[in-house]
């Protein structure tokens, strides 16, 4: 089924979770990916800010929570980073993350842009880069509405 979905909509996230958990290649590649990762997307096309928590156990996404609130949503944007509960948190405008998902923006551009923020220990993150790459690859395979 290749229905196009809105990027980072609830349906898109649920489709990503379904694909992650049924993709044996991903499960093999991401077996050291365990922990909760948070994404905050600002100024989405429908006028919302969105926040999603992805909880992984050995590559399997065992829990997904998704929420949207009218932008700018202070309760999302001002939420402190809880490093005891979250391994990493990525925050960026919707357009920027969509461009990254489509391979249209370089990592250098992102890393030197104050609107793209990654919180959490990067040294630790590098250790599960393979799992993160695999997660990203699965997500990039989901057709999105232009």
């Amino acid at each position, binding site marked *: 089924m290749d229905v196009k979905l809105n990027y980072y909509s609830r349906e898109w996230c649920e489709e990503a979770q379904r694909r992650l958990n049924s993709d044996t290649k991903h499960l093999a590649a991401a077996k*050291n990916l365990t922990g909760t990762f948070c994404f905050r997307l600002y100024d989405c096309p429908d006028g919302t800010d969105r926040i999603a928590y992805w909880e992984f156990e050995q590559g399997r996404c065992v829990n997904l929570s998704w929420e949207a609130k009218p932008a700018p949503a202070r309760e999302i944007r001002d939420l402190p980073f809880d490093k005891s509960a979250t391994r990493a948190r990525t925050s960026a405008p919707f357009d920027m993350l969509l461009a990254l998902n489509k391979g249209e923006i370089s990592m250098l551009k992102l890393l030197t842009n*104050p609107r793209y923020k990654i919180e959490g220990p*990067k040294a630790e993150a590098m250790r599960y880069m393979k799992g993160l790459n695999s997660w990203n690859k699965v997500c990039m395979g989901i057709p999105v509405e232009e």
Partner: protein
Amino acid sequence: MVKEVVTSRRTLDSLPRLSRLYNKLLIAKKEVCVQRARLLTEYMQGPGVWFEPAVIRRARAVAHILEKLAANIYPDELIVGGITSKPVGAIIYPEFIGLLIWPELDMLREREVDSLQISDEEIQELDGEIFPFWQDKILADYADDFTAPPTPLSLLEKFGFFLLTEAGGISHTAPDFEKILGVGVQRLIEEAKARIRDMDSSSAGDPEELRKRPFYQAVQVACEGVIEFAQRYQQEALRLAELETDPARKSELMDIAEVCERVPAQPASSFREALQSLWFLEVALHQENYEQALCPGRLDQYLYPYYQRDLERGVLTEEEAIELLGCFFIKMSEFVPLFGESIAIFFSGFPTNPAISIGGMTQDGLDATNRLTYLILETRDLLKTREPNIHARVHKESPDEYLSMVCEVIKGGGGMPALVNDDVIIPTLTGKGIKEEDARDYVVIGCVELSVPRKTFGSTDAALMSLPICLEMALNDGYSPVMLEEVGIKTGDPRQFRSMKDVLSAFRRQVAYLVEQMVIGLNALGIAHRELYPSPLLSATIEGCLKKGIDVTAGGAVYNFTGVQGVGMADVADSLAAIDQLVFREKQTTMDELLQALEDDFEGHERLHQLILNRVPKYGNDEDLPDTYAREVAEIFCQEVARHRNPRGGVYLPGFLSMTNHQAFGKLVGALPSGRKAFETFANGISPYNGWDSKGPTAALKSGAKLNYLLATNGVAYNLKFNPGYLQGTEGTANLSSLIRAYFALGGMHLQVNVVDRQTLLDAQKNPQKYPGLMVRVAGYSAYFADLTREVQDEIISRTEHCTA
């Protein structure tokens, strides 16, 4: 007979000024300094600036910064001048990679790697005013336009293949400080003016000559900025003297004012003026070029005449010389690099590496050791400052007394000085076309790189490249199992490899491909430096540039090289040995089974894993199988690097040092045939894998001595760790001296020694406050243990601790 060596006749207690300065340094918080970024931005926002010739624009920007930098003189200082406005500060280069900290500004104070203090006001200024201006003016972006997609920059961004450190700026050279101390900066201005006059009178219409005019003008402008900078220190010293109530300090401040009035504009007339002049030049040069590895070079050689003259005139004692050297060492430790967190992982411990080289041979081939050599060693013994990174040159005729003192200082801890072997390095350099007398004059740059001082722009640490990822791609037909994409080239299904020849051929082709990508990226960056941010001030200090009228970034130096490093050599060597023995010779496993084991990180393949770990000999034990592969791996990298040319008309030089890239690159490579598990660290430099050199230091060094150093023209780093108990007393010193002599006689190029026991390191990890001055050798540089990431600390703890010969 063991010769008694007396070091540290003086203690830090007998030098209270140094003691106070050192203690202050140890407790000083590292802070981000905004002033350079602010002043550079201020100038670059001016009307018409971007229409100036690049070299003039750069010179005026540097002069603007130098004319406005804070002139802070701190209590007790004899050598003055701050690279930053903070007691210990990190300088920002927004035109290079400074913007990498932009998204991290509000995390800098608490980040786990290299945390730095910064005020809310400074964050606001960077976020709201400075960084937005530079968003579309970054050097790497400009360079990217010179390359075809997928560009080397896109490989760089993956972090696992290579780092192009030249994106961060250039330095990594040893300017002609000797000349400038001797003639003064004013003479450089006059020389530039004279060149313009000559041009105007002889060949005014020649387009090549016309191009030189802005360069000479730029040299004048930048040098005038340097003089202005020193004069402001003179004024500040006079101001403070006026306010000072302590007559002793008042007198010192008056002396400081007198020194700053003369140097660096005029020739230095004393040891103190020479050191002050040198330090002002370092400060000024770092306003133009980044804070890495701008090296004073052979300090004991070119400062010796000043020292000797002062001694003869009765105006300087040995103790005063040590005090001045100590003040200079402390100034060199007052600045730290500012990396984005992703980059800081590759360079843990705040290294800046202004290296000095002592001892060795003269240009005539005689022993160069002098009294100042010993005083520098003594100063190091007293002060365990992070910088300068000291290297002791050793040759067959080096006096025993010198080597013994070097060993004594090493035993004092901190991994300095490192040792380099003249008898190997000089032929290595002449092999690259360097004249014999220049080669004899070589210095170590940064960590371990080799260069002829005064006349070379060698950009000696332009990039670092992972070798194990090349093997991993060779064993996956170009595919990277961690990146999950085909990054390398197709080199065939490894299951069809019939011999080691096939494995090596695939590995070589992957290395060649990655080296080529790295070189393309570096050459693009080199062009960008030349076109966007040339270096007129650095050019004024490198022989050849003024004569040719060409900036150092455009090939003005006499010698032009670019140095790049291979990382993880031992991991590849041990892996090849395992494949050779178990797959092809003994047929204990198949390539198919081995590849599956690697994919599974040896889980479910314990028998094979144990076979690899216990049956296959490892590099670092004087075993021919892995040692032969180590030599071959190093040769492959060296040959592939050496075939390339840089944009300055020079060639690429290969070397093997890793900073902490062996840790970071290791996180992006899966399990290896060596038995190393996925994402673990690689071996550092050319050292054996941690804990696998189990047959003692002699065997470890014999393995290292088998490499072909004639090809490793950019230098190597070999780490050895000893339990202090083994080196106790004069006998321990003699043992270490003998080991070094023997290793160098066998052909070893470099050695650095940590003398520290595991218990101390474990306790320091647990209770860092108990060990503020505990310093260790990392990989080509030393760092305070507490400044290192937990993982690098663990790696150093896990290194083999030799207890016997």
